[in-house]
């Protein structure tokens, strides 16, 4: 057991932090306020910069995934710019990760290097108007015509869709077979016949993150992911299950940013002749911010380590980490806003943006309610009567 970073892990953390402070953080405020077209261009540049610096490769060493590295690097990107982390994650983890785990050799050769270098952008399209965590309710279908798969349906909010070169799309190939055996993931390339992007969405937070709906009208897929049909539900589920720690890292990154801003404010702002952080009303909030953020980070790393080592129960630990860190960061952002008070409520205060960004963790890729159900089931089943 060793709770400290190894020298390599420390280097990854420090290098990523230094790079993101220099190249990513200065654009975060602009991404939050600029028009969508500009944001899309900026985001492509950010991904290219991260890829060029070798940062998108982390989480992707050797044959498998390195979720500990993903958490360490991810937190630093998220601290600099939460939207950029979510875009990078959709491309280099959700899309490239799926290709790494399930793709054919040809698909890996074609896509992994460009996605991880930041030259190409990827996306994963699974959710729909009526299908979120309940992925089996997806209505999109795929039919084979000759050698070609044609997709029909509408995907909901797809992160990176407006800037993506390749999108993995979840669709039913055989509705009779049900979700476990009847769904597959397909590669759809930018400009494919029958692919239309919806309007960009406007969001509470994570503004500047390119996202839109997708309409697939006889859309020509460039292929099935991997060789075997009917694996899509499990494949997408596996990615989202591993992905819990990435969302936890997002939350810890936002939490760290909140804490640093708030601590600086509490150190410099005075009231009634004292720095406000010396009042318990403020100081104790700083302490709670630290506690929840610090534990959120260890929870994420603990779960990531379990995933990397194949420990049984890793999925539940991931759910615990996401739940803890996402609920933690909404508290942290709220405390941060309180520390700044009126100054924080103003657009451009910094904490105002983080306050909006923070809410996403409790909602995305399995709400807190869904995480609780998953976690509870594991413990309740330990005592289920034997039938």
């Amino acid at each position, binding site marked *: 057991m*060793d709770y400290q970073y190894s020298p390599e892990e420390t280097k990854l953390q420090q290098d990523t932090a230094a790079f993101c402070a220099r190249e990513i953080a200065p654009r975060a405020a602009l991404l939050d306020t600029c028009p969508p077209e500009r944001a899309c261009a900026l985001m492509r540049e950010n991904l290219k910069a991260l890829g060029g610096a070798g940062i998108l490769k982390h989480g992707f060493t050797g044959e498998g995934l390195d979720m500990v590295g993903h958490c360490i690097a991810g937190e630093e990107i998220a601290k600099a710019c939460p939207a950029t982390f979510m875009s990078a994650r959709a491309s280099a983890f959700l899309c490239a990760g799926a290709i790494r785990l399930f793709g054919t050799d040809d698909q890996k050769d074609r896509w992994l290097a460009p996605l991880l270098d930041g030259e190409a952008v990827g996306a994963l399209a699974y959710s729909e108007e009526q299908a979120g965590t309940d992925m089996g309710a997806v209505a999109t279908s795929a039919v084979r015509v000759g050698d070609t798969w044609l997709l029909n349906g509408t995907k909901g909010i797809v992160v990176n869709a407006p800037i993506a070169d390749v999108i993995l799309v979840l669709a039913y190939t055989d509705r009779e077979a049900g979700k476990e055996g009847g769904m597959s993931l397909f590669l759809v390339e930018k400009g494919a016949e029958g692919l239309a992007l919806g309007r960009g969405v406007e969001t509470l937070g994570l503004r500047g993150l390119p996202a839109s709906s997708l309409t697939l009208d006889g859309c020509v897929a460039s292929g099935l992911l991997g060789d075997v049909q009917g694996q899509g539900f499990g494949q997408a589920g596996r990615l989202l299950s591993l992905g819990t720690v990435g969302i936890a890292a997002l939350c810890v990154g936002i939490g760290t940013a909140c804490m640093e801003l708030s601590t600086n404010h509490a150190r410099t702002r005075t009231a009634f002749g004292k720095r406000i952080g010396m009042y318990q009303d403020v*100081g104790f909030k700083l302490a709670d911010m630290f506690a929840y953020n*610090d534990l959120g980070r260890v929870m994420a790393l603990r779960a990531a380590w379990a995933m990397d080592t194949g420990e049984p129960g890793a999925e539940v630990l991931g759910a615990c980490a996401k739940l803890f860190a996402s609920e933690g960061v909404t508290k942290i952002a709220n405390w941060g806003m309180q520390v700044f008070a009126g100054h924080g409520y103003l657009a451009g205060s910094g904490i105002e943006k983080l306050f909006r960004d923070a809410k996403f963790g409790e909602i995305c890729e399995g709400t807190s309610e869904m995480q609780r159900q998953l976690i509870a089931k594991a413990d*309740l089943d330990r005592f289920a009567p034997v039938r």
Partner: protein
Amino acid sequence: MDFSLTQEQKMFRDTVYRYGRDEIAPLCEEADLRGEFSFEIWQRLASFGLLGLPFPEELGGSGADILTCCLAGEALGHGGVDGGSVLAWGAHTYLCAHNIYDFGTDEQKRKYVPGLAKGDLIGCMGLTEPGSGSDAASMRTTAVRKGGSYVLNGSKTFITNAPVADIFVVFANVDHAKKHEGITAFIIEKGTPGLSTGKPFHKLGCRCSATSEVFLEDCEVPEENVLGGEGKGWFIALNGVEWDRCTLLSPLLGAAMYNLDLCARYANERQQFGRPIRAFQAVQHRIADLRVFIEACRLSVYRVASAKDKGQMLNPLSAAVSKVYAGDKGFEMASEAVQIFGGYGFMHEYPVERNFRDAKLAAIGGGTSDIMRMIVSRIMMM
């Protein structure tokens, strides 16, 4: 990063868990109801070697590292051993015996540690006074040098194990002008003239540990019983705080695991509206919150233990976090466990009721969660 436990550590935890569950826990309900220290429970802790875990074999211990001590605390709590019995274990082993082992002369170690490790002697530590809790440096107990000894005057309160203790590690100030630099630790044996203890307190929780005041009235202690040297008491007291963040907190983790097992079993068995109550999301969500608490609490406790074992610099912020979080949240979670049991949870026969009372201490003893927040915020403001 490496979060693994060795096979040996896992086996040890399982063994202590089974022993605690089968041999000790059955005695706890009645002892808790009486609100008395149980010498039978003490004997059972002793006979399994649990009172001497961290000491080397030549001093009657088993040479366990700090993480292993935490695993023992966790396993006892998980097995259903009440918070008071594990508090008695903790105060004796870590606050008394381990302080003697860490700071004592060879002679002091040989004289006291083997008896404490075997449980033949019961130990306690007296730091808190009626007028000084978190602000321990303001203690008023004095030690005045007189020839080859010191004369102690003052009183201590909330001293775990005091009514049954044979060995007292007591802090007193040799020179109030020096403030905390005058604080000195003394080893005092039961029966020393001028040393007496008050009537055991009736407590909200942790009722199987005996707690009382300690009175020092012209209590003469030979100079060879100074622990760690004159003026070193403050350092000793602070060192004890690190133990509080891991070994003394580990039973709270175990008690939460015990609560989760009780709740998950009950939620499967209890039927309402024709369904087991596990079918209701309000119950499921409480179960999930208990699990999240356990995982977070475990990490905060093991992290302190692991750093101490490895001799790594312990980040004072991270150490305090275990109390800020686990102290307050642990009580909240113990309350949710009572809620799952409804009316039954309010009854003494159901251990969730006892766990609820016992859990409150973690946010108070060994430094309140408020003081932890003060420490963390002051460091952040630097």
